[in-house]
């Protein structure tokens, strides 16, 4: 391991925080999707790093990472479809204007 695991973990934490900031702050729906992808990648990074650091040889970490990628793909697809539908319907995909659920 060329770099101690803690550093990799720190990196993924930073990435995760950036993604979270994006999800919370961006107005554009697709911007949020992008941020989510970032957060997922941060998680993958952790998976791989720990699997590498002290895995038990079962490849669970990497398998998990693979699955996360799969899920992310599904998520992005559906998300974008939604965005398209909303856009077609409401001419905007700014998150703060879509407030049908307002109480």
């Amino acid at each position, binding site marked *: 391991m*060329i*770099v101690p*695991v803690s*550093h990799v*973990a*720190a*990196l993924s*934490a*930073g*990435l*995760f*925080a*950036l*993604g*979270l*900031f*994006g999800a*919370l*702050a961006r*107005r554009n*729906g*697709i*911007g949020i*999707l*992008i941020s989510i*992808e*970032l957060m997922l*990648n941060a998680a*993958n990074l952790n998976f*791989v*790093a720990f*699997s*590498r650091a*002290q*895995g038990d*040889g*079962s*490849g*669970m970490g*990497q*398998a998990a*990472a*693979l*699955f996360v990628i*799969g*899920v*992310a793909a*599904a*998520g992005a*697809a*559906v998300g*974008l*479809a939604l965005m*398209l*539908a909303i*856009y*077609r319907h409401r001419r*905007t995909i*700014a998150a*703060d204007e879509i407030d049908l659920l307002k109480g």
Partner: protein
Amino acid sequence: MSDPVGPLEWAAKAAFYCVAALTLLGGWFAVSQRNLFRAALGLALALFGVAVLYLFLQAEFLAVAQLLVYVGAILMLIIFGVMLTAGIADPAVPRWNRQAVGAALACGALAVGLVAAVLRAPWLAGAGKEFTLPLEALGRGLLGRYLLPFELLSLLLLGALIGALHIARKEKE
């Protein structure tokens, strides 16, 4: 590829940190760019960075998978999404929403907290012997112990596919 020794090792460490920095930069662009296309590019940079990091962590298959799936497919999807929804570069549209400041503070605090916790945590560094995972073991793992999640994933992807198609289809008038 096993760990290089001596001066080569220091160079690898430097490269690793450099790639890490690049990933972070990409992330920042993805998040902050007003123009969504540039944001998408920022995301691309970040994804590349991660792929390289996988390499450093001897997860070659993953790196390739990352490149293929993430960059190739998901990114393309996002770009299409961007293209299809107008106003990608409209300067009048404010980039951040009302709670940006609050979000920034929260995420900053989160980041600091996590990093501090991670760095100070007594990882069991080297408790187990470092070992690399032969690809062949990964494949057997996927079709052996993790067969169920593997199948479920395929099912999930099929569902998502149909769902996305249905939602995005243009209504018949």
